């Protein structure tokens, strides 16, 4: 009897392609995405975009900057990318801070004047000038990575400075060197400096240990903010996509019941019908966003009312894009079961890549770039600009343009596919 039940279930599953896809393709797709993020990307670990402002312009600061530039996990820039092929001036402390605030760079290091006079700090009270590290408090990993790398290059990129400082400390502790020892020390230091000059990029490991570069970290954004906006945006967009595809599926129901035929035999054209559904689904998605953010405000103290204009604009654009995405899925699929399978597969994949489940800045670069092909990424970036970075509405132009453009394109494709319903 059990055999008969198993046999029946196997036959039913074989004929339900949607269930088959969900059973096998979805886990494989997800496994691949997360494996790509965590396991197989040895050569493309997430890189940190770092601005360096060298106010010192000393030999030591130059050595430090060059050493940072050679770190594989950092993308170091001292000036913004050229605009219209015109080179831009070097970053200042102010422009570097603005860049971190706007999210263009993750970290900025300000190397202060006189850093080169005393770059290595042995002990806390030796008067070494501190490098300032400006960061975004939403990113808890990048500051730690940059801090660690700074110490590493400090020890490896400036061996002569390390040796000189070390001998000075040693002299203090042992009551001074003999003239013979001093002479030999100076000869060796001169030789070491010559080596550095002849091979400035060498990654010579100093034998000295315990040397550190003094760093003062400062969050330039988000210190008093609530991270809940990230989750509201990320989770919100993912569920918007599910709701929109489910709602757009009413087209399939109406096609099955014959209601679609009846509607199309009246004054309503297919374009009008789809536009009406798109408008409804956009409003539905926007209402969902409103509920989610109002809840975040009421329960998690999200600063909602001070960002109302930006929320409405990016919210409507997001709602429009996800509604059009739902329309496209519905017009692609032949049955509700197909729609369920395809939408689950696509939405979960998009959400994983687009940052709804996992911050994109922690993904490998290739994955971050792939994420830019998702609605999630652009919507989350838009909400982040509004709620986290406090940027003006004008700063949302790229997100608005992409979301509206994508929504329009998806709707036009959906309209083209819906021709199959016009004449049966």
């Amino acid at each position, binding site marked *: 009897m059990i055999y008969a039940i198993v046999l029946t279930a196997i036959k039913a599953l074989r004929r339900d392609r949607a269930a088959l896809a969900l059973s096998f393709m979805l886990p494989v797709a997800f496994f691949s995405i997360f494996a790509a993020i965590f396991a197989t990307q040895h050569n493309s670990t997430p890189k940190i975009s770092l601005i360096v402002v060298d106010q010192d312009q000393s030999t030591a600061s130059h050595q430090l900057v060059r050493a940072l530039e050679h770190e594989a996990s950092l993308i170091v820039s001292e000036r913004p990318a050229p605009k219209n092929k015109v080179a831009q001036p070097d970053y200042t402390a102010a422009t570097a801070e603005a860049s971190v605030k706007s999210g263009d760079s993750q970290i900025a290091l300000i190397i202060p004047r006189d850093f080169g006079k005393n770059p290595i700090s042995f002990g806390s009270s030796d008067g070494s000038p501190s490098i300032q590290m400006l960061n975004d408090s939403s990113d808890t990993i990048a500051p730690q990575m940059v801090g660690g790398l700074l110490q590493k290059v400090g020890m490896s990129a400036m061996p002569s400075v390390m040796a000189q400082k070390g001998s000075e400390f040693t002299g203090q502790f042992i009551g001074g060197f003999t003239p013979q020892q001093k002479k030999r020390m100076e000869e060796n230091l001169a030789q070491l400096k010559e080596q550095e000059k002849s091979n400035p990029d060498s990654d010579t490991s100093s034998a000295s240990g315990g040397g550190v570069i003094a760093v003062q970290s400062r969050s330039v954004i988000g210190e008093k903010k609530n991270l809940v906006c990230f989750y509201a945006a990320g989770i919100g967009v993912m569920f918007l996509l599910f709701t929109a595809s489910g709602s757009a599926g009413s087209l399939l129901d109406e096609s099955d*019941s*014959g*209601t679609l*035929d*009846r*509607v*199309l*035999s*009246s*004054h*309503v054209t297919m374009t009008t019908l789809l536009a009406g559904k798109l408008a409804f689904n956009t409003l539905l998605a926007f209402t969902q966003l409103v509920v989610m953010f109002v809840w975040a405000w009421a329960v998690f103290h999200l600063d909602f009312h001070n960002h109302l204009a930006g929320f409405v604009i990016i919210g409507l654009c997001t709602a429009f894009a996800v509604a059009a995405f739902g329309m496209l899925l519905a017009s692609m699929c032949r049955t509700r079961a197909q729609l369920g399978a395809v939408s689950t597969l696509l939405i979960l994949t998009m959400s994983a890549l687009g940052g709804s489940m996992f911050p994109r800045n922690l993904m490998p670069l290739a994955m971050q770039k792939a994420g830019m092909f998702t609605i999630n990424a652009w919507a989350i970036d838009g909400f982040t600009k509004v709620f986290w970075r406090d940027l003006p509405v004008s700063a949302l132009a790229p997100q608005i343009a992409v979301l509206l453009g994508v929504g329009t394109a998806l709707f036009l494709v959906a309209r083209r596919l819906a021709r199959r319903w016009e*004449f*049966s």
Partner: protein
Amino acid sequence: MTLGGSMATVLAAPVSTALPLEVTSLVVSFGAVKAVEGVSLQLRAGECLGLLGPNGAGKSTVIRGIVGRVLPDAGTIAVFGFSASSKAAREALGWIPQELAVYPRLTSSENLFSFGRYHGLSGSKLAEAVAWCLDWAALQDKADELAKNLSGGMKRRLNMAAGIIHRPRVVLMDEPTVGVDPQSRIRIFEMIENLRAQGTSIVYTTHYMEEAEQLCDRIAIIDHGRIIALGTKEDLVHNAFGSRSQVTARFAGTSPEIAAWVERRGGRISGPNAEFSIENSTEVVALLKDAADDGLELADVSLHRPTLESVFLHLTGRELRD
């Protein structure tokens, strides 16, 4: 509307004598299958024209072609002289599909309001139309009931009401009584008679010959996408059988000898009965005498004029419900 592939040509301006509906040489194909092959129909003012045929004969495809839901390969369709795709034609045409094409999660009146708006109605005109339709379908007390909660018969009536919310002058009814109980069927017949009394012209498709006989002024018998006979019931019977009558006899037993005897006498076996066609009622006596002489035991016998079922059988060699 002149149709050739996807091309359509608007007909000349209508004249006052234009027929409510005129279909000429309509051809509809689905891939290699020709569902409708050169169907021509004329619906007269105030007339109820039946399209009678078995399932798959092409009745629904003809209707769907008229309302523009299938793209004909060839043929012309005119509604009061207007192209079937014109706004005037759409306003004049009402379609009651075979499927229960209503929104299940909307109430009866909400459904009617929605379909009324789709037909361009608004304001007081829409409210009046909804009230009239609820009254016509005897659904006033179910106006606020969700469509999905209505009984089968009520859903059918709501389905009909949604098709005439814009008060069309020509109504195409595609098997509106499918799956309803006899009581609901009677109610639906009353609704149709009510429409006819107001001068509405109707095309009524069915595979129930009793419905066609009861409701329709003229009947077109359709089979394999072609109209094989058209006329009043009397015309159809007369054209097929002349003045001949039918004798239906049932003999005791089911032996092969009975079938052989029936065949020798020019009759045919239909279920448990044997059927014979006779020119004169006096031939019954001779028939019964022969049966008795050949040792057949007669259980039942009746004499009647041929029905539409008989006409269909005569024309196609198949029964209507095959």
